[in-house]
């Protein structure tokens, strides 16, 4: 039983603006695995989050974490900017925050624990600062209950972002 109202069918690409809403508390979009499509998807998701019940700082954090997760998928699960593939993003409003389910049909994550990520170290010099790895640090710093499953040729990442109760602006 797929979690989404539309199954992930290889090669079937819908623009980020093609929205599927199965109920008032859920919002889904499909996007091709390109960096440019991520920009559109972020705008769509942020567009349904009611600005009156969510502060600008919270909105910025949500947008950032989603960008990091989607960038990782496009750059690592798909090795760059292919349009051969499909990413689905499902957002559900829960009492304890925003629950995200992000699924793709790209390559698997490396086995073992999810990456810890890297962060700047003020005790080290300029040349010792990391240029990569900030993404997973950000995801882990903000998201809760992060879980990853590889099954049936699909990756599924689920996580929650704590936010005040709000409604989706449909």
């Amino acid at each position: 039983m797929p979690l989404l109202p539309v199954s992930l069918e290889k090669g079937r690409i819908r623009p980020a603006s093609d929205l599927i809403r199965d109920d008032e508390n859920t919002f889904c979009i499909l996007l091709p695995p390109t960096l440019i499509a991520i920009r559109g998807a972020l705008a769509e998701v942020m567009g349904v989050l009611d600005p009156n019940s969510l502060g600008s700082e919270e909105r910025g954090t949500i947008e950032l974490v989603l960008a990091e997760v989607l960038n990782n998928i496009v750059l690592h699960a798909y090795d760059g900017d292919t349009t051969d593939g499909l990413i689905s993003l499902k957002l559900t409003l829960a009492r304890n925050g925003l629950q995200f389910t992000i699924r793709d049909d790209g390559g698997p994550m490396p086995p073992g624990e999810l990456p810890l990520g890297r962060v700047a170290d003020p005790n080290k010099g300029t040349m010792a600062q990391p240029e990569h790895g900030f993404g997973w640090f950000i995801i882990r710093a903000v998201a809760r209950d992060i879980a990853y499953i590889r099954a049936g040729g699909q990756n599924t990442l689920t996580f929650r972002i704590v936010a005040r109760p709000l409604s989706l602006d449909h």
Partner: protein
Amino acid sequence: MQLLSESIDGALVICVDAPRIDAAAAVQFKDAMRAATQDAQHRVVLDLSKVDAIDSSGLGAIVTVMKHLAPDTRLELAGLTEKVAAVFRLTRMHSVMTIHDTVDQALASAARVS
């Protein structure tokens, strides 16, 4: 990516004229910065006041540029919007780089030092 650069009081001030430094723009940003800073002297002030959003790829690109310029040229930042400043705080980059509220303050701080 459009960069507007200008030499002011011995500093090369570069304004990023783009709304995002994200994964889709990071490579372009690095290439444009390398070209724009070829003749940089001691100090480059990167004006981010027109940048609305940055992600880890954009942040990594700024670190790459900072390392590329070091040790002869120092990269400093100015004019971070609230959303961009939050990313620097979250990744502790704000404690590694020199960040000024505005380009004017960046230039004034150099005047005080010298």
